[in-house]
């Protein structure tokens, strides 16, 4: 993947967001008046974002239009990206399931999923770890940190 193309798209997006911050008066609400004004600093920062994004976008666009060869980190290798999507998917599933199934039920499944994703097939120790770790964390959090992790609520 060519990072210069991403640079151009991302910079354009950031410039649009910055222009909205500079021009829209409805992004802050309520509160008292101050010498500075609530949108003073965000607008200064938005101005700088436009400058730096434009610099990056112009540099990348010029290289693209010249057809310059990719250098160093401009080439993004996409090998293994499927694993990233699976991992983020597992994490989103974890977030959705924990409030209903509870920490102790969901966590072993998530740990098994991540271990499988990483190539783990040594099932006995993996299952033991996936069961023991959540129980220890749950009890440790409750007893020592007074943090009550979610429990089964269905």
């Amino acid at each position, binding site marked *: 993947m060519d*990072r210069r193309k991403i640079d151009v798209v991302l910079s354009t997006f950031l410039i649009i967001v910055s222009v909205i911050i500079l021009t829209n008066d409805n992004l*802050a609400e309520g509160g008292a008046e*101050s010498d500075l004004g609530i949108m003073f*600093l965000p607008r200064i920062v938005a101005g700088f974002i436009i400058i730096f994004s434009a610099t990056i976008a112009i540099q990348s666009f010029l290289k693209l239009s010249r057809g310059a060869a990719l250098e160093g980190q401009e080439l993004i290798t996409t090998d*293994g990206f499927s694993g*990233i999507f699976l991992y983020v998917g597992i994490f989103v599933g974890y*977030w959705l399931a924990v409030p209903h199934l509870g920490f102790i039920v969901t966590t072993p499944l998530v740990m098994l999923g991540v271990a499988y*994703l990483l190539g*783990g097939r040594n099932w006995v120790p993996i299952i033991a770890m996936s069961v023991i770790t959540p129980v220890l964390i749950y009890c440790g959090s409750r007893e020592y*940190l007074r943090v009550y992790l979610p429990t089964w609520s269905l």
Partner: protein
Amino acid sequence: MFDNILSGFSAILAVGPILGIIAGVVIGITFGAIPGISCIMAIAIMLPMTFYVDPIIGITMLLAVYKAGIYGGSISAILINTPGAAASFLTAQDGHALTKAGKAGKALDMSLFASVSGEMLATLVLILVAAPISAISLQAGPIEKVFLLLFAFTVIGSMAGESIPRGLLSCCLGMLFAMVGMDSITGSSRFTFGIDELIGGFTFTPMLIGILVMPEVINVIRRRKVPHHELAITRSPNPADNRISFGEYKKVFRTILKSSGIGTFIGALPGLGSSTAAFIAYGEGKRTSKNPEKYGKGSVEGIAAAESANNAVCGSSMIPMLTLSIPGDDVAALLMGAFLIHGLTPGPMIFFEHTETIYAIFAGFLITDLFLLGIARSGFKFFVKMASLKRYFIFPCVTVFAFTGAFTAGQNMNDILVLIAFTVVGYGMRIVGLNPAVFIIGFILTPFLEQNLDQAFAIVGDDYGRFFASPFSWVFIALSAFFVYSSMRMKRKASKVPAPAQQEPA
């Protein structure tokens, strides 16, 4: 000051802090030695667990993780030529060459002694220098602080990023995210778009874990098909090859002292970090060595130079953070967050408001070195075994710890969503060459900037010339311009050197 140091030692020499230090050292070495896990990940994961203990225990434990984690990185660098961080690259060159020659014990010993020596020297400098600097910086009013913070943003953004615009853009994005939620001065809510959950802003801990820790997990997931390397210490039949004698240590002591000085100086400057210190000290060591040809091919002196400088940065990077509220690198930013969570606001006032706590932390910093020396020396085999664990045992646990850590911050499931969102943002930033550490520094410092800017405007009124009336203002403007110029020169020079090989972005 002497009385404060003594009272610091009396506070730290209790069961709780000592157990915290021991736990921190063991966790730090273990995490540091595991290829793919850096000490920053260890600190971020440990951070939520310290919320509920005394700041002296919690902070010294995190600092012990930091120090031991930096040292732990050299274990995998020496044994399997896998530097956990860029700073261990040079250690890997010489250390792995010694390992291949059957002298792993010698390399590990040298690395440990040099690390501890460098850290101790830097800690002593921190203790002696921090309070006087803070007394000077107390003279600074809101106007001076505004220029100081702008200087910090400029230096960190321009020195730490892949390129100057990318570094500064990372900083600006961090600043923008810090402005989400209710403003502490006016009570206005900004960028909340009617979502009540955003009024409090983004919770720091999940954001931090998402930006700095989880992308490292994702990197391991991405490279899951790369074969696992098991760590093992090679033993030579000649006992002299398995350890460092006092004579050998004495021979390299000058190099250690000089490199520690370089590391301490570089660490105290924001934005440069341990890699720069290691490379400069290594270069200087090679230049003045009697055997420069051995550097890179198994030189004990080379390991001493790189490791002492690399570790000296640990102590001295606390100087700008504790005296000026400027975290110089990602770990300092993380530790600054830890200080804030524990109710200690880094800055000159910390020496007056929390005298006993801060000197206890300093004492803990020194004592950590002794524990590091003892624990690492006696437990090489254990740490090597721990670090050899297969990644499918380690990373499921890291995932669960990250989840629990994010939840612990506010006992709120929305924080997990923040964690997931910033995991994606953090990984995306690495791919496009933005610097997550600079993003975090921008995020942490923006509330201070806004508060001081508001006070400064109240002071100057319509007479904007008063912004430039103080010599401090001109000094910081000149320093900012100088750092941007020198960073541009450094990057131009670096771009003229042909790239060694194409690297992956993250």
